[in-house]
């Protein structure tokens, strides 16, 4: 859903008033419609090839995305998005680093993978390709109202998403103020490789058949958004959003574990595999609540300084998992001559840990109701620094290149650390490079 800054009433009336004035000037009744066919049609396509690569042998992603819009006149617009991305590389499985080497059973249950001593365990058995499709339509509804609707679909090996959204905007104050509301509903289906794990069950040995077990679970998300776009002056515009999100269903990550450690020393409790190869430590599959309610406020200001545009955005989010976050982001579009521009970008993100985040579980103690060692739910800080360069060709087509550096550092809340972990907890911090080439053209 996009909210357009729509021009004043007067503009929409000019066409009719002008035609009427011309008719009375020329003394003619009804004009014949002009019909100028032109080879250039009306699709505006923005495409991007993206490479995302994390440090070490972690996640690498290559994706191709296109976003196409078509104007049908009278403010009726169609938007289509298609993205294909291919993910490889290792990601943390939630287990903690240990003094000794560790072996884990892979999600399919057919194989094992290992982590050397002292390293944060990473699962590198994943290669996945994802396809996502989105379509949206918006059009004027009555004078000053615009209505929009959209559908979304995405598919990957173990995950499918289906969603729909509707929106309504209304203009006030000679279209200086626009109020927008939107609602979105999504239904996701997860079919984890290796089947659905019982919460907190122990990771076992390799099994012969190793396949799904066929289990699938669902997750529903309801999102509501209330926004105001306000023109502050000739050179600036402000956007304020309030959003509410309610997720329910299977919200657990089916592949993530927690290490079970000795309650005094904090060392991993060893496990001896049975006849087949398997996990060499006690690991339990994580369990998250089956509902999550989130609220966020977002503000964005765009300010023009004689052709240079500064964009500043701030978002505060809070939810009932106790993950609270602040995001501060800024971009500066700096024109170079008439056809090129440079756009530096900075972003700072910080969040507090979920109430059920644990670095590990203590052996012998009663299991908590919910627990996850996913670093993405810990105390976390992230920084992005990037720059984009773009150039518009005489044909009007634009190509661009973007390079960004992302750094993420997470910290376990002190109270979740046990024994020797204190002062020696290792989090799967990483750096990533984002390289993107874009091309924007008309079809």
């Amino acid at each position, binding site marked *: 859903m996009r909210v357009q*800054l729509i021009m004043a009433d007067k503009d929409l009336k000019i066409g009719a008033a002008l035609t009427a004035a011309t008719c009375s000037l020329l003394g003619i009744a009804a004009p014949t419609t002009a019909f100028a066919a032109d080879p250039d049609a009306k699709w505006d396509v923005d495409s991007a090839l993206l490479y995302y690569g994390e440090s070490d042998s972690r996640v690498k992603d290559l994706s191709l995305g296109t976003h196409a819009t078509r104007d049908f006149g009278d403010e009726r617009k169609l938007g289509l998005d298609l993205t294909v991305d291919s993910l490889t590389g290792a990601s943390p499985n939630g287990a903690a680093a240990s003094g000794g080497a560790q072996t884990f059973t892979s999600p399919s249950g057919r194989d094992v993978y290992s982590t050397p001593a002292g390293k944060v365990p990473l699962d590198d058995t994943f290669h996945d390709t994802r396809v996502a499709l989105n379509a949206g339509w918006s059009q004027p509804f009555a004078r000053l109202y615009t209505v929009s609707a959209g559908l979304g679909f995405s598919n990957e090996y*173990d995950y499918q998403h289906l969603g729909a959204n509707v929106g309504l905007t209304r203009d006030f104050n000679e279209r200086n103020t626009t109020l927008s509301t939107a609602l979105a509903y*999504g239904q996701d289906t997860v079919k984890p490789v290796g089947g659905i794990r019982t919460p907190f069950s122990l990771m076992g040995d390799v099994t012969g058949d190793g396949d799904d077990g066929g289990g699938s679970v669902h997750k529903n998300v309801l*999102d509501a958004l209330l926004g105001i776009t306000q023109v*502050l002056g000739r050179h600036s515009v402000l956007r304020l959003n309030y959003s509410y999100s309610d997720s329910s269903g299977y919200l657990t990550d089916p592949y993530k574990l927690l290490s079970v450690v000795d309650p005094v020393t904090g060392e991993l409790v060893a496990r001896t595999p049975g006849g087949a190869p398997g996990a060499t430590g006690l690991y339990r599959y994580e369990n998250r609540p089956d509902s999550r309610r989130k609220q*966020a406020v977002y503000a964005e200001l765009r300010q023009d300084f004689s052709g240079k545009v500064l964009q500043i955005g701030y978002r505060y989010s809070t939810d009932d998992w106790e993950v609270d976050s602040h*995001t501060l982001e800024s971009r500066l579009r700096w024109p170079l001559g008439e056809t090129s521009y440079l756009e530096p970008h900075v972003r700072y993100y910080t969040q507090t840990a979920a109430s059920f985040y644990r670095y590990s579980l203590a052996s012998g103690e009663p299991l908590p109701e919910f627990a996850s060692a996913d670093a993405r739910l810990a105390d976390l800080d992230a920084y992005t620094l990037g720059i984009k360069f773009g150039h518009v060709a005489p044909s009007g087509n634009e190509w661009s290149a973007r390079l960004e550096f992302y750094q993420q550092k997470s910290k376990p809340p002190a109270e979740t650390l046990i024994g020797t972990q204190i002062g020696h907890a290792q989090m799967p911090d990483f750096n990533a490079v984002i390289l993107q080439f874009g091309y924007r053209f008309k079809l």
Partner: protein
Amino acid sequence: MRRTCLALLAASLLAGCANVGVKPWERDVLARDDMQLDSNALDAAIDDHIYFSKEGTSGGRGFGGGGCGCN
């Protein structure tokens, strides 16, 4: 308490908006592509997807975009 504050802020902003703005013929700068709030829709969608899969919070800016199995 926080929720009430946010609601009051939103309401007072809307009420105070009646006199802020520009005349129709003063929209030259605002009409430029780089002043549109959705000017970088594709970049924003890409970024949102990356941060959705690497951080604990997502969204806030708008909709469009699906879920994925990465969080």
